[in-house]
């Protein structure tokens, strides 16, 4: 556990554009000692400036979050709350409302109501009668009210800034974040602890590499964790390297199914697999958002603890971007692609004539459980207008509850996830309160709704080779083939009917599949073209939008992780870059891929969600 990040600005601090001393106390909500029922959300911190906490009660107000603060002196303080009204884009009624309490007493107004964008809301003057004060956030609605920070000041002219750069400076100064981050050195630093990053870490560690695995959530597994609940997909143990996937088999869940109860996803199994490796140093809850580059090389990646704000520097000769968003590559200046390429660019039959931004979306999955007796759900006034015709009379929302297709997957994450929440609640509230056959849902309780979105696509970093649809459909095997991708080319689009009903902002998707034979992904797709010591695994590898449709599956991502872990061992042993492996040491990698790093004796029980792969003896219908 951390110590609470409250720092007093007693020393003279100047920050950009404000020629006066900040004279306040900044309390980060994500640093509250007791989170109660509030959850930390870091998904948009690079955009809105900080992790925040959110009352994700699915309609039932959550328990208070609280912390104690020591004030320098008693007296009257002006209080500001950094928050927003997340339903403002769609309604004049605010969904997520909360109170701030000082020593158990509300300061007298509700928050989460007024402002559409993140900003400081003045909460009035509060009397601090004792230096030690208990501050609480009291949720009023159970519908995702959110708070980033609280600011106390005695200076009437001291108003905390809304501009992100100035706010950042305020945080750095008041929270003591200006000191040099603690630096630790490793052979190989992996950012992102989804299936790809986790497999990369274990693979490298088993081959003797000292690894740091940096993950911005409290659990490993990414989209396959119990926070997102997407099951693993595609096949392992395929030609030409049947030993690839043994590690995926070792750490992956034995049960399949999207949006299922938490235990299906076996978070502990993945965590334990990592903890078993003495060569891995695991850093959970660290979000990497700064990179130091020297020429074409990354020197350091700096990550911030999403709870404490504490920063650490990870130094290494070699890095892997397994962030999904290609964050590290982006920060380091790696070439990248987003959206859909035009047909002409790679001569792909499935690509659109003109390039555009119609990416696949983010899933907010959900399910209800049946109780023995009726249970109510709030008749929300802030939901979208709903009718029987618009409603989905179901008790589970699968992958195809997908939002944000056509939006910016990095900059608009909060909006896209929020729209996902909005439609789940709008539909459910309607089913429970107004649906013509609402009796059917009388005993149904909304049990789980994801607040960490399941993202499919964002930045793809450019490697020495870009895999395209034609490689896949022509089975153009290349000599540097590695882990085989085996899912169909599975591209998602807004469901046309839903798009029409919801005025251009669809939340249901359809999938279009093109069958392919398993195809070994070239190693040149797994390292950056212009950042010499950066590899990638997962959905941010070097592929066209169309080819992403198949490689994005998590068993495939895990196998890619196994491969770059092996490559890391060669880079470390021979002091070479990934490109030099391709040019001068590829036979070493081939031998490692033949042997594999996973336990070959564990029976393959992951017989779920293998996909419509064409196997060797099948023909395209």
């Amino acid at each position: 556990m951390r110590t609470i990040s409250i720092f007093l600005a007693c020393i003279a601090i100047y920050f950009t554009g404000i020629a006066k001393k900040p004279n306040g106390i900044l309390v980060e909500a994500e640093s509250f000692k007791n989170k109660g029922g509030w959850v930390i959300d870091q998904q948009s911190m690079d955009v809105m400036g900080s992790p925040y906490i959110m009352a994700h009660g699915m309609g039932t107000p959550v328990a208070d979050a609280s912390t104690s603060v020591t004030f320098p002196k008693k007296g009257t303080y002006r209080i500001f709350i950094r928050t927003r009204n997340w339903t403002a884009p769609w309604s004049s009624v605010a969904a997520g409302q909360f109170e701030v309490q000082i020593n158990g007493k509300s300061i007298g107004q509700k928050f989460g109501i007024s402002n559409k964008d993140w900003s400081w809301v003045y909460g009035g003057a509060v009397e601090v009668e004792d230096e030690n004060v208990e501050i609480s956030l009291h949720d009023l609605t159970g519908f995702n009210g959110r708070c980033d920070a609280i600011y106390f000041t005695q200076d009437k002219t001291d108003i905390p800034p809304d501009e992100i750069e100035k706010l950042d400076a305020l945080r750095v100064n008041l929270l003591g974040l200006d000191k040099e981050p603690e630096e630790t050195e490793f052979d190989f630093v992996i950012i992102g602890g989804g299936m790809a990053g986790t497999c990369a870490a274990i693979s490298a560690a088993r081959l003797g590499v000292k690894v740091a695995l940096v993950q911005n959530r409290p659990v490993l597994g990414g989209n396959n964790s119990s926070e997102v609940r997407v099951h693993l997909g595609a096949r392992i143990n395929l030609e030409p390297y049947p030993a690839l996937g043994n590690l995926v088999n070792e750490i992956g869940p034995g049960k399949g199914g999207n949006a299922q109860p938490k235990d299906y996803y076996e978070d502990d199994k993945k965590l334990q697999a990592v903890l078993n490796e003495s060569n891995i140093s695991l850093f959970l809850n660290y979000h990497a958002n700064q990179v130091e580059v020297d020429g074409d090389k990354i020197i350091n990646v700096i990550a911030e603890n999403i709870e404490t704000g504490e920063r650490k520097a990870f130094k290494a000769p070699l890095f892997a971007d397994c962030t999904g968003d290609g964050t590290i590559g982006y920060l380091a200046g790696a070439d990248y692609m987003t959206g859909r390429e035009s047909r002409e660019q790679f001569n792909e039959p499935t690509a659109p004539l003109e390039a555009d931004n119609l990416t696949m979306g983010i899933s907010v999955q959900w399910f209800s459980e049946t109780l023995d007796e009726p249970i109510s759900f709030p008749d929300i006034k802030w939901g979208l207008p709903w009718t029987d015709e618009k409603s989905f009379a179901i008790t589970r929302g699968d992958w195809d509850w997908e939002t944000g297709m056509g939006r910016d997957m990095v900059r608009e994450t909060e909006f896209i996830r929020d729209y996902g929440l909005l439609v789940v609640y709008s539909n459910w509230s309607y089913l429970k309160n107004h649906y013509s056959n609402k009796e059917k849902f009388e005993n149904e309780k909304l049990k789980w709704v994801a607040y960490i979105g399941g993202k499919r696509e964002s930045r793809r970093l450019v490697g020495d080779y870009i895999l395209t649809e034609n490689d896949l459909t022509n089975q153009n095997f290349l000599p540097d083939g590695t882990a085989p991708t085996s899912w169909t080319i599975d591209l998602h689009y807004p469901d046309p009917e839903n798009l029409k009903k919801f005025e251009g902002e669809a939340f249901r998707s359809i999938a279009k599949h093109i069958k392919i034979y398993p195809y070994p992904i070239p190693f040149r797709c797994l390292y950056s073209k212009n950042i010499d010591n950066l590899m990638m695994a997962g959905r941010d590898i070097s592929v066209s939008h169309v080819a992403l449709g198949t490689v994005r599956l998590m068993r495939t991502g895990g196998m890619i992780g196994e491969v770059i872990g092996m490559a890391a061992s060669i880079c470390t042993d021979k002091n070479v870059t990934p490109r030099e492996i391709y040019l001068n040491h590829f036979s070493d990698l081939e031998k490692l891929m033949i042997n594999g790093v996973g336990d070959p004796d564990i029976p393959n029980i992951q017989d779920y969600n293998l996909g419509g792969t064409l196997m060797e003896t099948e023909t395209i219908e």
Partner: protein
Amino acid sequence: MIRLLSFFVGILMIICSQSKFDDQAACSIDVADTIQTAIYVKLDSLGIPECYHARIFTPVCETERCYAIEIDFYWDLIGRFMGYDTIPGQGLTKLDHIPFTEADYNKLDGILANSNSPLASFSKEELVKNTRSSELDGFTGATIREIKDAIVNGAVYSCYTLWHIANGVVVDSLQKATAQMFNRSLVNKLVDQNNQEVYYFLIDNFSDEDFRSYLPEVLISISNGKGYYAKNAIEKLPEDILKESLVQTYFTTSFDKLDYFAQVALLKKLSKITLSEDLITAIKKTLDDRNSYKNDLINNLLIKESDP
């Protein structure tokens, strides 16, 4: 009436069902506990096996009423079910002797043609649940949801029985029967189908002796196969066959056309064999500027050849 599963298979089946040449018993299967049915191989005009045929006679009980089904079944030479003919006056029936409609027959075509049917996973006793349901299929219970699309309504046991006859142990028996009939003309005919599944059937069932006997056919399949077929076929080639000049000549002209993984598979096998100069030259030409396992294998070969 001939049921056409698909255009291609349908044509084959017409040929098969109309074959006038004499049949010979190839094997037999048990279609019910006590009824053993002979399966006959049909020959083409040249006397080469064309397909398999059996007249199936089996009792089926839909709930409490039992029927006899008599129907002609056809399989191809590697045991894939091709289709069926109903026998005049012996049309299929559902519960209460209601005759199959045209739509029922069409559905049955798809059901029997699907070798991955969920019917494979259930025993006869598991097909129906004794619970209340809107999907009532008979008097005693409801068809389980998992097989709903794999049956004709009202004929769950008929579909189950026929599917297992068409796709069950018979496949193995027929493959064995075909393997026992291997001769040059049959293997030639099979290779001419240019079908990946047939190619795999051949290399999976060839003895070392067969590989030697049908070497030209094997080499044709390596040239025509897709995906990892070439790699797998090369891995199955008996080592001493690679000494033969026909093989070395073939790989001299085709080595550079093999995919990378097939090249690696071949190079691994060639390490213990004396190679013709032409083959060495052909292989050497594919040396790459960059390092690879293939290059390592080639360099090892070159060292071995220069220093025998």
